[in-house]
């Protein structure tokens, strides 16, 4: 029995969940898409909070199977005790890479912006190479990128340069800064154009501040030092911006980095001031709608659409604003395809040793997409869209593109 004399003077209630908050309920293992698809992965409970008790910064990180965690964070979404399960795994992965070194492949994949710069400068050549079977065999052999994984096409005209020539609207009610991310800049400028158009149709002047890669490719390739460097640069660029306006992001994972991971995972001082003014673009427009300020002059968009909610969107804790918004558009028939993780997890499914696993994780989603036979699959995350196109042979779009279309753009 606890002794009666026990009478501490302060009343402490822990606010942040620590590893000790894990009750071993196993809810995380049941939702883990990797554990569902392979029997060699021991699951988030063992690799996160369980092993964390045996880790120290002075000792080598020797947990086998750590690299199989794809970083979807569904374990954290599920945890009843709000334990940062995936962050423990992330730190251990990073510690392991620090000790053992990184492969050339992971070094490259962590530098999306560098890849983007090179890719867009040499766009026709890079795209030819990425689509050439012989080149892909060599790339698989020497770099470790799976030969069957379609790689994103690079575009010569970047979003940054397009935007410089983009005429500013004559008058606006407010300003918002756009964090476009590497994908829009180097691979999908059209998405950025449509995001700008949708915002401008609402009387918003779009500002494009100086920005660096958000850092998530570096984080997932076990290079948190590099991610922190990128994060510091972004926080420096964006701190004066948030004094004047909100920031919107059209990439789910970029947004999550800015909102949450800069402060929690990378512990970047001052980042929470930036994060507090970052919104997912669909989240932002929905807020506008609830304030009665969304432009509702939509054209009919007669489309059957399927919505796939990216795992990282669940971590935003904002629900599915894209579904709410698109259901305002006449003609849109929108359903959710609720089959969990698509499997690609950024650069995870690109790697030669992870490709098959990534396709297996996504197989339920692919089947459901094929069975639904819709016109287009919508997802806020660019790599989810890549994976659904590849696995289900579907065409895909970001939800903002449908909104832009309802505004008569594109």
């Amino acid at each position: 029995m606890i002794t009666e004399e026990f009478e501490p003077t302060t009343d402490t209630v822990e606010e942040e969940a620590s590893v000790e908050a894990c009750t071993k309920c196993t809810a995380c293992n049941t939702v883990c898409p990797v554990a569902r698809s392979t029997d060699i992965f021991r699951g988030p409970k063992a690799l996160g909070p369980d092993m964390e008790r045996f880790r120290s910064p002075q000792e080598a990180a020797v947990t086998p199977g750590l690299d199989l965690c794809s970083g979807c964070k569904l374990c954290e979404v599920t945890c009843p005790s709000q334990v940062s399960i995936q962050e423990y795994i992330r730190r251990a992965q990073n510690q392991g890479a620090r000790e053992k070194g990184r492969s050339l492949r992971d070094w490259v994949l962590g530098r999306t912006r560098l890849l983007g710069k090179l890719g867009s400068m040499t766009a026709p050549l890079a795209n030819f190479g990425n689509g050439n079977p012989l080149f892909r065999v060599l790339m698989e052999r020497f770099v470790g990128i799976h030969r069957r994984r379609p790689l994103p096409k690079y575009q010569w005209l970047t979003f940054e340069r397009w935007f410089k020539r983009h005429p500013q609207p004559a008058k606006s009610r407010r300003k918002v800064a756009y964090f476009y991310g590497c994908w829009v800049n180097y691979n999908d400028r059209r998405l950025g154009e449509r995001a700008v158009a949708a915002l401008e149709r609402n009387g918003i002047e779009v500002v494009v501040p100086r920005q660096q890669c958000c850092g998530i490719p570096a984080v997932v390739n076990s290079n948190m030092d590099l991610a922190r460097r990128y994060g510091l640069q972004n926080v420096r660029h964006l701190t004066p911006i948030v004094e004047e306006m909100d920031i919107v992001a059209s990439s789910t994972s970029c947004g999550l980095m800015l909102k949450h991971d800069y402060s929690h995972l990378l512990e970047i001082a001052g980042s929470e001031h930036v994060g507090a003014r970052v919104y997912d673009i669909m989240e932002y427009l929905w807020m506008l709608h609830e304030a009665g300020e969304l432009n509702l002059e939509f054209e009919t968009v007669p489309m059957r659409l399927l919505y796939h909610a990216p795992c990282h969107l669940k971590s935003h804790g904002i629900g599915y604003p894209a579904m709410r918004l698109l259901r305002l558009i006449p003609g849109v028939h929108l359903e959710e395809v609720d089959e969990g993780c698509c499997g690609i997890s950024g650069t995870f499914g690109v790697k030669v040793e992870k490709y098959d696993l990534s396709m297996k994780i996504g197989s339920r989603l692919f089947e459901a997409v094929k069975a639904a036979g819709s016109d287009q699959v919508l997802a806020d995350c660019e790599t989810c869209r890549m994976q659904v196109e590849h696995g289900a042979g579907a065409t895909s779009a970001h939800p903002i593109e449908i909104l832009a279309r309802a505004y008569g753009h594109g």
Partner: protein
Amino acid sequence: MKTDVAVIGTGLAALAAARTVQQSGRQVVLVWPGLSSLYFLSATVDVLGYPTATAAEPIAHPAEAVARLIAQEPTHPYARAGMNAVEASIALMLEWFKEAGLAWEGAIDRNFLLPTATGMPKPCCLAPASMTAGDLSRPQPLVFCGFTGYQDFAPEFAAANLTRQWGAADVSAVRVTAPGYGAERLFTSIDLARSFEDAAFRDAVAGQLRERVTGDGVRVGVPGVLGLTMPNETFAAFQRAVGHPVFEIPTVPPSVIALRLFDRLRKHLQEAGIEIIWAAPAHAADVTDQRCRSILLKAAGHELPVEAAAYVLALEDWVDGAFRAGVHTVRDPFFHQAIAWNKVPTDRTAESLFASQPFEEVGYALTDRLQPADVNGKPLARNVFCAGGAMAGYDPSGTKSRGGMAIATGYRAAQEALAA
């Protein structure tokens, strides 16, 4: 974000409340701080198994017993919900299970008596059809079947204990091998459940059972691992291949049977257009003039206010972190008040691990309309209603009323929210 009613929680109380609001045609949003114990623990809806936590004789007719309990204990959660809510919520769930394609059986006027994984007879009111062939009021012999290397169900232990506890004469145990699994591999019921959806695996297991189990009318009890995503088909195919009536026994967490229930109901709500806000714990209520204007969710980076006409707090107490205990106080995440329970830590636990634990009863003091109340019995907010584990005096474990209390209070709280 704005809605008519916001339901906070992920357990049966929250699901029943959301369904009740949905059926009324009003808009509802579910706010999920993380999954509740329903997700990995429960498997049946137990209305009332024993009249008291220490009673030995199980209840056969729960409806009458609940009515008696309500008459005797006016502050019991069942009394707060009222008999009408108890009956209506059972009807609501049965209809919902049917509509969602969950094959369940039971009625409020009788209890099943089903064997647990430890060989205890457990009274429960509603159960999946895949469990009810194990009812101990039936005379046919029972064979418990385990899998070599599977640590979460020991058929020999269950059989021996059931013989001792229940005096059942004809109970025996077998172990069969599950192809691909063995002592060298660490696996859980989830892994087995996925394998059981594969016809070749299923038939290999069923083949061994057909050989080992003989005799007329023998019922075969297996751990609850018969399929995860398409349980009805998996169960039917397995039972056919075994050639005997089969019943599932819920396992220790993670309980596949609970997972199926939860996932199906969740998806069904989403299919009906109900939005779920994941991963955003509520951490404050904005209350002015005794009305809750919004609750604030801890979303990534910033607070997300959810504005509703009324709120149902259908949280558990400890499992989902609704309450945080300090040394001298217990605080709630909404009103940040020390709630109706301020005992010293030494009084929070009973000495025996198996006794009813006082901390289970910690919760909001309530008004007659299930509003969380202050020390004077006045509502903290007129449009907030409480259901499930966060109610004071809510302890379903000893009396086997997990599930029943949740849906009855969830239903009642939702009705109050609709009227608010």
